[in-house]
Every structure is written in structure tokens, then in C-alpha cells.
């Protein structure tokens, strides 16, 4: 197996996640897709770590922090989704347009 295999796999997963994040209505699904993107990035980091610095583990340390941030992000994201659901009775991202002028 070569580095390129893993990178292409990571790119594929990333773009699937991106497509979902851009095109889905439900905020929870958007969040799920963002998790997919983060996982794709982790795959790339670990692959780089395995093939370029096999003994230093730089990429693995990096992905540990990335997982940590992902955990924090999903917690806050879901808290916001629930707060919005309580207020608006919906989590349809195309109906939540609080950013609109």
C-alpha cells in the first residue's frame, strides 16, 4: 500500500462529507457530515505520519488534538441544535436564517 491510496481515500470521504454538509437540510445531518470530513482529515494525517515520519508520530499527535477539538465541536454543535429546536421547533438549516440581514 502506498501513501497515495490513503490520501485518495481521504479525499473521497472528505468530498462526500462536504457534499452532505452543503446540501442537507437537517442540522444534525450537517453535523454528521462535518464529522465525516474531520475523519477524512485524520486519515490523511495518520497516513502522513506512517509514511513520512514513521518513528516521530507527528501526524498521530496532531490527529489526537484534532479528535479532541472534534469532540468539543460536536458537543457545542448539538447543544446549539437543541437550543434552536426548543425555540423554533425545527432544525431545518434552510429555515434557520438568523444570519439574514
Amino acid at each position, binding site marked *: 500500500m502506498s501513501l497515495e491510496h490513503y490520501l485518495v481515500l481521504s479525499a473521497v*470521504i472528505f468530498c*462526500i462529507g462536504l457534499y452532505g454538509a452543503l446540501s442537507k437540510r437537517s442540522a444534525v445531518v450537517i453535523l454528521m*457530515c462535518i464529522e*465525516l470530513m474531520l*475523519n477524512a482529515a485524520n486519515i490523511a494525517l*495518520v497516513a502522513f505520519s506512517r509514511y513520512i515520519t*514513521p518513528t516521530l508520530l507527528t501526524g498521530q499527535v496532531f490527529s489526537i488534538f484534532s479528535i479532541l477539538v472534534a*469532540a468539543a465541536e460536536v458537543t*457545542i454543535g448539538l447543544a446549539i441544535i437543541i437550543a434552536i429546536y426548543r425555540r423554533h421547533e425545527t432544525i431545518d438549516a434552510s429555515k434557520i436564517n438568523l444570519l439574514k440581514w
Partner: protein
Amino acid sequence: MGLEIAFWVLATLMTASALAVVLLPNIFRSALALVVCFLAVAGIFVTLSADFLAAVQVLIYVGAIAILIILSIMLTKEVQHGNLSNKLRLPSFIICAVLLGITIFAMLNTAWPVSAEAPLETTTSTLANILFSRDGMFLLVEIGGMLLLATIIGAITIVRDK
């Protein structure tokens, strides 16, 4: 050889479950597909000889994040609506395809400085040394702890009834 088979199986499983997350009409099912995908990622980590990260992946993503997501799907009664798409389906598809194309092009056309060294057999103690040693990343680990604490407090504050 065994590694190659494992990679292709896991890669196929992962792509399929990722597509399932996006395409399945039922949100609950797509959440389950997400769990499968997370597990596949853990498997990929094993093929990359990142044993500790594979364990972390299972614990945090499968054990915590996936559960949280399923919980919030149930709390918000989203299952009734189904996994709908918005009006931007086509433009997002095009742009993601283009991005995928150029990313793959860039990845295949870069000369990566691949090292010939064999990977470490076990990574846990090395990682621990990097993360917790005096001249390592101990401060960052502490900051990460602070971040999680702040997240918990923030999440409670946001969700709390007034």
C-alpha cells in the same frame, strides 16, 4: 498481502457507509451508517499501524460522538421529516466533484518524501512520551483539557432552560 486486502475491504466499506450517511432517506439509519464509517476509519488506522489512535477512534467517535448524535436525533424528532436535501444539491455536487478532482490530481502529482523506515510496533508509549514529557506538548494537553471543560460548561449553559 493481508494488509492490502484489509485496506481495500475497509476502504470500500467506508466509502459505502459515507455515501449511505449522505444518501439514505432515514436519518436514524444514516446515523448508524456513520457508526459503521467510524469503525472503518478505526480499521484504517490499524492498517496504518496506529493502534492507539484506533482505540481512541472507537472510544470517542463510536462510543461518544455517535451516541450523542443519535440522542439528539431522537430529542429533535427529526426522523419524521426524513433526510431531505435543500435547493443547492446540484451546485454542491458539481463543486464537490471539481474539488475532489483537483485534490486527487494534486495528491498524485506531488513527490512525497516517503521514508523507508519501518513503523513503530506499538505507539502508545511513544505518544505518551511526546504528549506528557517536560519538553513535549504537555502545555497543549493542559489547554486541551481546559477546552473540554469550557465546552461542557458552554453546552450546559446553552441548553439550560431559562
